[in-house]
């Protein structure tokens, strides 16, 4: 094989070796890991809620979008010409990392509000989980429309110097050499590293802190946990906060990489996140992480002439895995409660 040697060849030759090229392989792996990291963080938001309440929060995609807009607002950027808040901006912008953190906190608080408005009233009445699915979908539609009402459908992007705290950054880092460049966008590498950090912190929190242990106890058996003195309502709220926080962070990270493409830009991620948790195993935290990276990598390795079908391919992969392992890759078989 002509690994890494494509310079000066005819296009036909280049096309033929293109798919087998080692540089390309490395490049697509890094691309896949970067997007996979974001999928993982985002899907963890779904997983946390599912593991505690056994329901899917369909407003998670909208919270993802909201987190990106919160960060944009807090960074002191002005809105466009359409929407009620046309041309408005905060008088003072926060430094980007702080805006991102605070944006995620606000997204988390929105998660708590959604729990109060769409989940708790149904839960206290012991409603069918399917109804909760619908009410969370209603919240998603509401949030997306409110965003458009307030700030229009325009595309927004974070200031070019958003990451200036890290010093002057090149737009891409070359993993090859002069003649045979293997460039990977710097922002994707940053996102990948940042995702790993978030995943590490969350794993520590769940496994080694008192609060994390309480959360795990509730997810095992909510009734027994409350008999043991764990304040279930508080921990459910905490779960929604964490879920919203993770969704908000993921939204900002994606916005940083590809801009905020309007109020609807979380919808595709909402679906992808569902695929990730089903693939990894519903309610399994390591499953969400593994699922995120698998789907990210699978998308990156879709052959060049099929790239536009990468979503379809990701879901086909999901389908095949479910045929073999109906509970997902890391899902545990649960005890059927009658």
């Amino acid at each position, binding site marked *: 094989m002509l690994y890494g040697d494509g310079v000066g060849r005819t296009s036909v030759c280049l*096309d033929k070796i293109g798919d087998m090229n080692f540089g390309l392989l490395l*490049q697509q792996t890094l691309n896949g890991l970067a997007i996979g990291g974001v999928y993982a963080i985002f899907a963890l938001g779904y997983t946390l809620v599912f593991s505690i309440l056994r329901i899917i929060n369909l407003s998670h995609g909208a919270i993802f979008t909201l987190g990106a807009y919160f960060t944009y607002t807090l960074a002191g950027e002005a809105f466009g010409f359409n929407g009620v808040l046309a041309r408005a901006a905060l008088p003072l912008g926060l430094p980007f990392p702080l805006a991102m953190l605070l944006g995620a906190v606000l997204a988390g608080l929105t998660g708590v509000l959604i729990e109060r408005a769409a989940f708790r009233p149904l839960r206290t009445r012991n409603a069918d989980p399917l109804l909760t699915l619908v009410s969370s979908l209603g919240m998603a539609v509401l949030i997306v429309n409110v965003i458009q009402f307030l700030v229009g459908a325009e595309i927004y*992007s974070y200031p070019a110097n958003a990451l200036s705290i890290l010093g002057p950054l090149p737009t891409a880092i070359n993993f090859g050499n002069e003649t045979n460049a293997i460039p990977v966008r710097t922002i994707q590498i940053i996102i990948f590293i940042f995702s790993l950090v978030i995943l590490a912190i969350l794993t520590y929190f769940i496994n080694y802190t008192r609060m994390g242990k309480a959360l795990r106890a509730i997810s095992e058996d909510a009734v027994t946990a409350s008999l043991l003195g764990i304040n279930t309502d508080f921990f459910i709220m905490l779960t929604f906060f964490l879920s919203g926080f993770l969704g908000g962070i993921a939204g900002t990270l994606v916005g940083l990489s590809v801009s905020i493409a309007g109020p609807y830009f979380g919808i595709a991620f909402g679906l992808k996140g569902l695929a990730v948790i089903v693939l990894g195993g519903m309610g399994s935290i390591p499953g969400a992480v593994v699922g995120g990276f698998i789907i990210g990598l699978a998308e990156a390795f879709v052959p*060049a002439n099929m790239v536009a079908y990468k979503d379809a391919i990701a879901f086909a992969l999901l389908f095949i895995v479910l045929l073999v392992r109906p509970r997902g890759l890391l899902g545990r078989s649960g005890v059927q409660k009658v």
Partner: protein
Amino acid sequence: MKRVRFLLLALFAFTLLALAACAPAATTAPSGTSAAPAATAPAGSSTSGDPILIGIAVAQTSNTALLGQEQVIGAKIAEKFFNERGGINGRPLKLVFQDTAGDEQGAINAFQNLINKDKVVGIVGPTLSQQAFSADKFAEEAKVPVLGPSNTAVGIPQIGEYISRVSVPVTVFAPGAVKAAQKLNANIKRVAVAWAQNDAFSKSETGVFQNTVTDTLKLELVTVQTFQTTDTDFTTQATNIINAKPDLVIISGLASDGGNLVKQLRDLGYKGLMIGGNGLNTSNIYPVCKAACDSLLVAQAYSPELDSQINKDFRAAYEAEQKKAPPQFSAQAFTAVQVFVEALKAIDSKSKLSGMSLDQMRQELNKQIITSGAKYQTPLGEIAFDKEGEVIQKATYVAQIKMNADGATGKFEFLK
């Protein structure tokens, strides 16, 4: 169980309410109180009598709203502009807006509302060619004239007798952009093409571009990449394109996806020329590709620099409101309203509109547009229509984006 049912009902009612509150409902447009009065408005021309209703069915929600919002602005400016100049021989004109959103069903609903409920004489819309192929048939069946403000795919006027457009088809202006690129770099030999395969217009546009590259200009097409308009991550396509070592990249998509592809190509080190199709023909791509938008070539059906009285008036009204030069989509929406107004005026001068039924008025209006051979002096320059309803536009343009140092603002500079 009853309580749950009640709660569900309440939730749905609330969601519906929220949607109704947020989606711009079918209202007649407030005639742009913020728009500055055009400098040349003739004094003392006033309108009276029942207004004549023209429907505007464009995307005010969904990701297509980026383009639709520009069309709404253009149409509202036209409404105010022509009413200040006496409307339709003294009768005021009133626009009725229906949101099509970004899909086919939304466009069909908007058309049906305008035809049956709002009873308009003609419709300007929809935003996307993809939507036009579904919705226009309903107007054709009801014999209501349609002017496509931005449908540039091949085959739109051929949908039916009542379907015309003011947007010059992609076949006319796309080749100009490739020739402009050759003027900037005489050594272009290898060309890469990328297009959004879920969009009818992008498919039609890329076909024209690819034919121009291979058949007309005999250049080498080194790779063809596809994507979806909803995609955001283009590293795979960008990597494939760069590895094919092109001298020119041609992108057919919409603002958000196309802009991201432009940015990611530049981020990964592509240094050659790029052409953006009609979907990238909007300043809305600035926040997406930022500094990387610089030097992107975009074929244009409209130039704000056009030296004519109507364009100067339109530009002044637009700039007073939006603080920037008008984009093509606003100019085309203005033009579509203008064609309806002038055609109605011409009919009224021959036999009074007030004596006609709605059906008669619709049929006469269509006849006037496609058979009179009338010429219209519009912000796009002089246009006319052939018997199929296809627009005949004299001039097309090519612009190159120049971004300012801040990387956030820029402008389309028109190439000579």
